């Protein structure tokens, strides 16, 4: 499996991840190497094997739908890059 610099740019955009233009080729090489490694998985037939998500096959626990957390907006916003009037600020999204 070989990825091109173009592929890397597409994937990086999906991940909203900036990578320097001069590094694209080396990412393409490293990622292709990783995918070659991963391709070894196809050497074994897994048609009748159930995928394993939790080592103890535990399912997600449910709880009663009641409030158990208090609002900590002030604490959490104290470490935010930019807030105003209790809101997180980002560049304008809607004109």
């Amino acid at each position, binding site marked *: 499996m070989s990825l091109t610099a173009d592929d890397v740019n597409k994937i990086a955009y999906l*991940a909203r991840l900036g990578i320097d233009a001069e590094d694209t080729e080396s990412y393409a090489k490293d990622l292709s190497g990783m995918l070659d490694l991963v391709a070894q998985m196809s050497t074994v037939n897994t048609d009748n094997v159930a995928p394993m998500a939790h080592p103890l096959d535990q399912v997600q626990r449910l709880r009663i739908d009641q409030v158990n957390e208090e609002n900590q907006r002030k604490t959490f916003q104290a470490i935010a890059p930019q807030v105003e009037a209790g809101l997180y600020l980002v560049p304008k999204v809607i004109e």
Partner: protein
Amino acid sequence: MHTKTITQLVKGLRAGDYSSQELTQSYLARIKQHQALNSFITVTDEQAMAAAKQADARLASGNAPLLTGIPIAHKDIFCTQGVRTSCGSKMLDNFIAPYNATVVDKFNAAGTVTLGKLNMDEFAMGSSNETSFYGAVHNPWANNTVPGGSSGGSAAAVAARLIPAATGTDTGGSIRQPAALCGITGLKPTYGRVSRYGMIAYASSLDQGGPMTQTAEDAALMLQVMAGFDTKDSTSVEREVPDYSAGLNNSLKGLKIGLPKEFFDEGLNSDMAAAIETAVNEYKKLGAEVVEVSMPNLKLAIPAYYVIAPAECSANLSRMDGVRFGHRCTEPADLNDLYIRSRGEGFGTEVKRRILVGTYALSEGYYDAYYIKAQKIRRLISDDFNKALEQVDVIMGPVSPTPAFGLGEKTSDPIEMYLADIYTIAINLAGLPAMSIPAGFINEKPVGLQIIGNYFAEAKLLNVAHQYQQVTDWHQQTPQGFE
């Protein structure tokens, strides 16, 4: 007193040989003296001295919990309220955690004194501690070699006796491999045994916190504090916590040890094979029997891991977006630019590689071929272990194919670095508990013996490790310059 174990320090504190404040001061001085190791990212002197003062008061009152006043430090992946929690990344260099991880809360309640936060590979992605934003950690046994990773700061600090014990986390070997390379004792518990709440997630279905100590006896004391069900972690397992120290002295007569033949094939360095054989022979003298077992799917562990871990990390790290916390780029043109540049500037190369692979594996049309396929292989690997553990009590083998390698030696070839985790990764995929204990030296560099047990058999592993430490002294050796 810096070479003493927790078990010895507990006695000394209670006998009044020294106070927690004296202990804390003495360890803080050592941390400062050996700053060049780069094992700490943050040292919390003031908070530590205040906690030690409290501990002394509690000790004087006569009803203090066992570990009251014992200095420890946390891997910088555990959130500590009011203290920077960087996860080894520029992304979180300015992140002051607004809450404590459950593990941190439990240690605070147990009365331990936190001296600071330990260096690690960025977001726990690495096997050499060289991906840290704060620079590589040096191995105290050989300054120009790596301490292992990702809990490299924890391992180096315990090995150099800068702290008696530390916490670590293990997603693919990140407790066991640095423990092996630095000559200390490390335990990765069963998946679900220790709460992951407030432990910054790398690969959620594999991550597990555990203790890093000088001895198995100390690891039992640390795990006693860490283990337990937590409603705040949806994958935490509701199961009683046994007394991990109670069975340490049980005899190993009749213990069945399985040696997987795939662990000892041509990939293993011959000196390492000989060192492991010597350790196993020691167990035979203690009355254990050795049986060959087989893990036919072991070779697929690394391929499956490099789908599952990157896929989960690409999802977990999407929360670092420059909006609510962490690094934000200057003057973003629009929202996309804010995301792309904040993440591009905040993450290092190895983290980016894994996010990219994970994003690719989870992208439209590839999910079944990669993630589901990897989860199926995970089941096959787990079945191999379960089959072997029906025949034997524990499985033994190497932790790492070689002792500590040189700083910079493997950084140019990420795949080569990944392949070195062959003996540890499969255990995370299966979710089993495993330990690394000091078992000798190759060219004056420590060797680790891996002991793998059945689900929730941590007490058994600790017993097996402790008995070995009663007849060997590898775990008591201190690197030159740190005696």
